[in-house]
């Protein structure tokens, strides 16, 4: 039983990582320029550096890219308390 769970976990992990890596390559080449205004024009070193994180958090970045959203605005007490 434990071995079966471990086996399925290993398959799921490999699948998640494989999808994440494929998505991350597309994201650092194209998507990042759409979701973050500071990204266009950035060099390959930056794109390589964020690739592992995108592969790890790919569902989040996929939603961001698909929704055409910009970086979130911090919601601290002072920012909430101000009009803007």
């Amino acid at each position, binding site marked *: 039983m434990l071995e079966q769970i471990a086996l399925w976990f290993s398959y799921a*992990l490999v699948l998640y990582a494989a999808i994440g890596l494929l998505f991350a390559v597309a994201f650092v080449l194209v998507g990042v320029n759409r979701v973050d205004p500071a990204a266009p024009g950035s060099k390959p070193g*930056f794109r390589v550096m*964020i690739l592992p994180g995108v592969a790890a958090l790919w569902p989040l970045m996929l939603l961001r890219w698909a929704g055409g959203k910009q970086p979130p605005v911090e*919601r601290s007490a002072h*920012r909430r*308390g101000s009009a803007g």
Partner: protein
Amino acid sequence: MSAGYQAVLWNRQKKRYDLTILAGILLYIGLFVGLGAALRPEATPETLIIRAFGTLALLMLHVILSVGPLARLDRRFLPLLYNRRHLGVSMFLCALVHGAFSMIQFHALGDVNPLVSLLAGNPQYASISAFPFQTLGFVALGILFLMAATSHDFWLANLSAPVWKALHMLVYVAYLLLVLHVALGILQTERNLVLIGLLVGGFGWIVTLHLVAGFREKPGDAPHRGDVIDGYLHACAVADIKDKRARIVCISGERVAIFRNGDTISAVSNACQHQNGPLGEGRIVDGCITCPWHGYQYEPETGASPPPFTEKIPTFNVRVVSGEVYVDPEPNPAGQRAEPAPIRGSS
């Protein structure tokens, strides 16, 4: 600051910091492997490498966890905080070498899936003395990977500083898992009292340091109470604030940094937009409030970073009456100009 991303914003201090880390790593590994080979000739090179990188990663994690509270207690530790993320990534790489060598030596040479071997090779999850400690190390390594992978400023901007900080608080979960990983590993293999003593001592040091720094910090979060004139809350006396420095008070649910800039007073929200560093513990350099953690800068009167940078923090309207500073508790939107209050001529 975010006028565009680079892989690493190198400067002389960062290069010196990273060279020190590299030299420390090489020295530790060299000493550990050299002494280990001399004192325990029966140990294989793989075993020495696994133990050298494992103990080094844990030692580095202790340093990383100590830097924050030490910098809160004594400003002389701030330079260590400046480039802590590079120390964190270096620590993860050391832990990765430890994990990779362990996987190869203990789990990858048979005909069982290495991950299945790691997670299910020892099924005694209900036992304390025989618990599969390797699983704890695997989970901790996963957390450390997530933190290293999201260490770039891109992630701060795209997760927002509070979410990024919450994510990186998982380091404490990783630390606890690693303490258990090592403690159970020692109990099951060596029962070495020196190693157990070092582990308990390190854990005690981290807990004590955080408690002391936490107790020192706590009064700063108490809501500030004072006289109110025309809706403005009395915060402090002008004489309480040194030139180019700030006084911090808690207003409207968060800390406000009230800066004295020559003959004027300005107030901004205390949290830096970058990593929520304590701006009020910084000072005004070249006319800009400068975060003590990573040097992010904001104009005191607008709360905006000087062009071409785009960070903005909320500002507060201030008045000076008879040498006393009063702050409007209602924050202005981030980046909105609040006229600095002149010190002289106030009535």
